[in-house]
């Protein structure tokens, strides 16, 4: 087998050296009854040619986004990833290294982490950031739990614009801990509804901007109200590129900013792996979940980097840890860092502007379709539109014409009572032809 270097001779010699008669001697501690006599009932070993054919066959049963006019976002976004990004993250020294537990031979990973933390802090307008969470949804759940720790309160208020998957993920995690989840009804543009839900038992108010309908909101009044009640203001987002063009949560009073980093450096990958961004205030540093990398010096006084503040983490703190997270999103975080390094302020700003302009063009094109109403007024690259039919069936229908129109709100939340709402997004990947095709197909579908 091509991955197994031991030859039969090696195996014989090694058993002899150990003083074992057969490999089974080494499994002596396993209850005889539990030791399988023969391989389980699964296919036998295959070479690269066969495995490639097998995977190709499965891959070809799917319709890649790039082969369609593609307008789907709602938590994952199709952006261009420069060839150099994917090349660099595949370097053996990054791809096949472990968590940097031995900093003297892991400065590559560590310095990149330090750069990532700085980029995330700058992007969100916060003081500090951690070394990544699994994704935006779990980062959001961690933010809720952290807020409860910081405030020693157990009531979490969610606005009606938070991505339903984020809400469900946080609910699942928080309720086990006995935290109470309070939610405002789903609404295209009504984040301020959370103001009415605040009380002095509230640990945090969690608002998404741009929200799941694309609406962007000024968080300052919400932050002020939350602070007045002694609660933390948690801002979340699913589209990191938006921060290139809109005011960052950190500048609007957020105490914790968490969100999805996939759109920078990472492919769609059918939902994972992605990279959760998590930033907060310096004063909350010891309540922050996840790994962090910090600057220090070596025995020669040279600057270097190490994983630090591990007294917050499970391997030291065990049941008192700020989170149980161990493996995080290392390589996706590296892709984010590299792409962000390539972009820089100039590139990110332009990328964000392009996205916004494509979305404006999309909104205008769809608005012209009889019976279609654009519901989102202030947006970055995503909008909600009302269609005069069931949005989910409409999306499936358009797909057969090579248009992935977006996602029906009903699919994200069947109970929202928004079966006629479609969420569509445009990025730099969409051509004017794509938009025209979408509008045309939509018009025909509705006739």
């Amino acid at each position: 087998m091509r991955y197994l270097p031991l030859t039969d001779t090696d195996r014989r010699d090694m058993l002899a050296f150990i003083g074992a008669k057969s490999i089974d001697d080494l499994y002596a501690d396993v209850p005889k009854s539990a030791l399988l006599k023969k391989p389980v009932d699964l296919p036998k070993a295959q070479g690269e040619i066969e495995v490639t054919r097998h995977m190709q066959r499965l891959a070809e049963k799917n319709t890649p986004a790039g082969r369609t006019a593609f307008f789907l976002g709602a938590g994952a976004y199709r952006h261009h990833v420069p060839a150099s990004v994917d090349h660099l993250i595949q370097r053996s020294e990054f791809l096949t290294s472990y968590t940097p537990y031995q900093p003297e031979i892991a400065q590559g990973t560590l310095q990149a982490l330090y750069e990532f933390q700085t980029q995330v802090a700058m992007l969100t307008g916060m003081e500090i950031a951690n070394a990544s969470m699994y994704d935006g949804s779990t980062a959001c759940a961690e933010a809720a739990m952290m807020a409860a720790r910081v405030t020693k309160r157990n009531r979490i208020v969610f606005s009606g614009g938070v991505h339903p998957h984020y809400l469900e993920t946080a609910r699942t995690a928080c309720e086990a801990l006995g935290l109470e989840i309070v939610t405002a009804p789903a609404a295209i543009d009504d984040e301020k509804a959370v103001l009415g839900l605040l009380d002095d038992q509230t640990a945090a108010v969690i608002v998404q901007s741009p929200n799941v309908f694309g609406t962007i909101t000024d968080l300052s009044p919400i932050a002020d109200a939350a602070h007045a009640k002694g609660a933390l203001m948690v801002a979340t987002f699913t589209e990191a590129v938006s921060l290139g063009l809109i005011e960052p949560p950190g500048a609007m009073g957020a105490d914790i900013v968490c969100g999805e980093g996939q759109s920078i450096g990472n492919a769609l990958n059918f939902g994972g792996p992605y990279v959760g961004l998590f930033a907060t205030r310096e004063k909350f540093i010891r309540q922050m979940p996840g790994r962090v990398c910090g600057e220090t010096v070596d025995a020669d006084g040279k600057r270097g980097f190490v994983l630090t503040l591990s007294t917050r983490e499970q391997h030291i703190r065990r049941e008192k840890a700020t989170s149980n997270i161990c493996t995080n999103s290392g390589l996706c975080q590296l892709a984010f860092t590299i792409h962000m390094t390539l972009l820089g302020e100039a590139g990110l700003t332009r990328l964000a502007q392009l996205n916004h302009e494509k979305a404006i063009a999309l909104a205008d094109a769809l608005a012209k379709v009889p019976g279609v109403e654009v519901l989102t007024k202030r947006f970055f690259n995503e909008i909600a539109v009302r269609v005069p039919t069931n949005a989910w069936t409409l999306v499936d229908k358009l797909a057969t014409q090579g248009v992935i129109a977006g996602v029906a709100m009903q699919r994200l939340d069947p109970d929202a009572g928004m079966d006629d709402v479609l969420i569509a997004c445009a990025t730099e990947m969409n051509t004017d032809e794509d938009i025209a095709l979408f509008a045309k197909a939509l018009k025909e579908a509705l006739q």
Partner: protein
Amino acid sequence: MNTETTSGNRGLLQAEALIFEVGHAESTGVDLPKPKGGKDRLGGLKRKTALALPGLTEPETMRHFVRLSQKNYAIDLGLFPLGSCTMKHNPRLNERAARMEGFADLHPLQPIATVQGAIELMEEIAHWLLELTGMPAVALSPKAGAHGEFCGMLAIHAALKARGEEKTRRRVLVPSSAHGTNPATAAAAGFIVDEVPGTEDGRVDLEAFRAKLGPDVAAVMLTNPNTCGLFERDVKEIADLIHTSGGYFYCDGANYNAIVGRVRPGDLGVDAMHINLHKTFSTPHGGGGPGAGPTVLSAALAPYAPLPQIVIDKTNGGYLYALAEHEEELAGTGRKPLGRMCAFHGQMGMFTRALAYMLSHGSDGLRQVAEDAVLNANYLLARLKPHFNAPFGDGPCMHEVLLDDSTIKPKGVETIDMAKALLDEGYHPFTTYFPLVVHGAMLIEPTETEPKRELDRFADVMIALAERVEAGDAAFFKAAPKLAPMRRLDDTRAARQPKLRWKPEGNDAAKRAAE
């Protein structure tokens, strides 16, 4: 070694500043069409706060990260014997498969008819995991081992709730040798952690365990093979005891590599177990992640598996894969999902890699994986035992060798020093000071992808170092590493005055970097 050069480089080892110290806000490595620049629809929320993010052109970016990469150790450079981490070879075929357009360029919310192959792949990897573990159900969405633990403990919480016992059964028994994620997860799921001591021979103390059982016990979290690299002989008794006392058996599957294809956890009475695809099934560690932690569940816990779930849509005689994303879509199946672990359906990019790995090995190859992993570990144990203390080294080990520093410490050399000396020898060290139950633990996991030649070379180095300790040359160890990219780093300083990001004012850093 610290030969000074004008450049700060040392031969091929390049000094490298932070991007913030060399980049410009005007520079960029991405060319995009100029925006038309009409009126925006941001409702006055256009960014006012400066970004101040530096950019680098592509050649500068390539160089920056290639230079950084060379300061890293990696599996592709040599033995990476980090115990409990299963640092095995990462086949490039898997990387190619994961990048096939039909997988990488798929959105998780695409119309179901356009992603049939993707869901079929999820079904296929689920089938492999169920066959290998002998369990009836699996939750694919957990994003790493700890997340899988969380999923399993939430399933137990849900099952207890269904029994109306979630308030009364709050105690979770966790052996003192457990990995930190176990108690952390139990606590995160709202349980109270109760430690179970171990025995002289590195296993759970069955008597102590029995004594702790009671009507308030929700579950036991047991790692098997355990973190000492040993198989828990009494695993079946433990399973029976916890079950008869009304609790559940969570098994930490991080060490599954030692038994894959040889022992089915389902035959041991396990109720829930996560599988680190980034360990046993070779998806790359990527310097810390991402991973994937599919969690297999027993019949008792299966009804509580999280959303989404794969269902077959046979409406008008068809056969379509579909995803149930909400409880109502499971109406009539009797399933009561514990909720949702994360957005979307899990780490698809890891599923493609892991499936390519499974298909490549096949059932015969996977069995060989376990045997070779165990053989390699026992061979190292046999070679090192005469020179180090192996606390549980009388019997065979599983896939990892546990040594401690009890014989070298009197000479002034501790586990950490031994680890740093290995850096100069060109090796990534073993896992240090874990498990906590053994003082000065050195946990060595060679994995099955090491040739005998490499094991012998490593053993020779370890033995030579042991002799150097014998010779009383402690200073040599304290001074290590000397040949690594950096000398020993000051952890205390990092934690005392945390500096977690670059700041404009911190620009003296620029100079230091160029030193």
